[in-house]
């Protein structure tokens, strides 16, 4: 692929290995890079390990900027396949945990709906992300922004998969659809917010500045995903139909579900599907 000098990252200077007591080469780790809240994981790119040395999951978590850079080089198809595979696996894993609450048809329907929701939200929010990063000063092609959406979804999927055991414990213990549903919503929002580090890294790479618009985009993504999951309900509970055809705003649906659970204290019935 021909790279636009404005859109492509500057070549990453590699760090010389630092000898240790056992004479094994190691690399200096940037302080705080593992922190979820790290503002710009790519801040210390010059301290980074060589691109090929990190496992894809490790690279996504610790050096999202490297993964974004890989999408722009000749190896991009392989990177994209890796990202998509990670995304599918992570989302399907979390979907299985969600489906385990009701069992039955939800064993396959919940993972399928989680995957569909993530993909559709990415597609729906992509145009606004493209325009917003352009307004932030990035001069990029649409496919590069699409790549960042893929990286974000893959990172969200990894976060979700890592929370899957915790969610499973509560899913198996709770009898209230609304409690389990709220838990999944909180986990999803936390993962989406944490994936903002990818967007920050991309903006840095594109020599753009983070603006209020890029923060607003995360909010748009979250609101879109909440409406999408409401549209694809039931995902947590069960219902006679695979899809409840009734059109509802997500807040109205939540209010009705909470009221229903408060009245009956029931779990997973058709009146309180989430």
């Amino acid at each position, binding site marked *: 692929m021909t790279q*636009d000098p*404005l*859109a492509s990252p500057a070549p990453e200077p590699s760090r010389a290995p630092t000898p240790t007591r056992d004479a094994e080469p190691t690399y200096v780790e940037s302080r705080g890079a593992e922190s979820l809240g790290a503002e710009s994981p790519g801040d210390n790119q010059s301290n980074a390990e060589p691109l090929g040395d990190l496992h894809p999951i490790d690279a996504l978590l610790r050096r999202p900027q490297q993964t974004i850079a890989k999408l722009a080089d000749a190896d991009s198809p392989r990177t994209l396949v890796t990202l998509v595979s990670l995304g599918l696996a992570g989302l399907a894993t979390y979907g299985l945990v969600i489906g385990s609450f009701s069992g039955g048809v939800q064993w396959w329907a919940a993972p399928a709906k989680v995957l569909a929701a993530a993909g559709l939200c990415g*597609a*729906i*929010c992509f*145009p*606004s992300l*493209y*325009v*917003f990063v*352009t*307004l932030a*000063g990035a*001069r*990029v*092609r*649409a496919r590069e922004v699409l790549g960042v959406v893929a990286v974000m979804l893959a990172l969200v999927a990894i976060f979700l998969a890592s929370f899957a055991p915790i969610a499973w414990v509560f899913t198996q213990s709770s009898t209230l659809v609304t409690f389990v549903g709220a838990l999944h919503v909180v986990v999803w929002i936390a993962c989406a917010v944490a994936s903002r580090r990818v967007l920050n890294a991309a903006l840095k790479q594109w020599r753009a500045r983070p603006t*209020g*618009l890029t923060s*607003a985009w995360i909010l*748009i993504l979250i*609101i*879109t995903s909440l*409406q*999408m999951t*409401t*549209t694809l309900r039931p995902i947590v509970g069960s219902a006679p139909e695979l899809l409840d055809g009734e*059109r*509802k*705003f997500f807040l*109205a649906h939540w209010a009705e579900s909470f009221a229903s659970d408060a009245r009956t204290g029931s779990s997973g019935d058709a009146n309180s599907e989430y």
Partner: protein
Amino acid sequence: MQAPGELSCLNELCGDSGPFAARPDGDARRRTRDAVLWLVAGSSAYGAAMGAWSSFELSLYAAIKLPVLLVATAGVNALANGVVARAAGYRLSLGDALRVVVAAFALAGIVLGSLAPVVLLFDRTVPAPWSPAAWRSHDLLGVLHVAAIAIAGTAAVVRQRRWLAEFAPRREPGALAFAWLALNLFVGAQLAWNLRPWFGSPGMASEFLREHPFDGTCYESVFRLVAQSTFDPK
């Protein structure tokens, strides 16, 4: 600075350098044409999504009316905007002022167009206009449109300030941008009122314009609403 080929127009509008900076090689006519095309494309997409809650017809009508609203607002305000700019000390011709306003509207149209898929999702998934919960959807969509227009308007005004700064680097462009914003909001709100319906109201037909589109103003309507609720709450 050369933008990636396929998106040079968009990058020119959204980028820092601005589309109408006083450049010796400035091709103002081409840039104006590009801005108008983006304005029409973006705002049509948003208009179509806006009207899609009610019916296909209203979606089509709103796709036509929203670009008309923006162009008409710029046109009606052109003279006043130009005069205000001169009064504020900017050496902008009427054409320059109009081009900067149109470019800002185009930018707002692009942002709105990029939000059209999100609006369309809500249109198709909240209760329909013929359902019992239609008014709740109506109010929700109203809030959604206000939020989208606020995002687009803010992005456009912020960018417009930068463009104005290019024309007169020694002046603070905030005052002129604010004056233009006030004028455009004042006139735009009225024209939007005249061009109703936008996303429809439960129980009302999907039509291109209301029966008497020039009967009354939005400000009179707000005044009546406030007066009625204050002095005659029954």
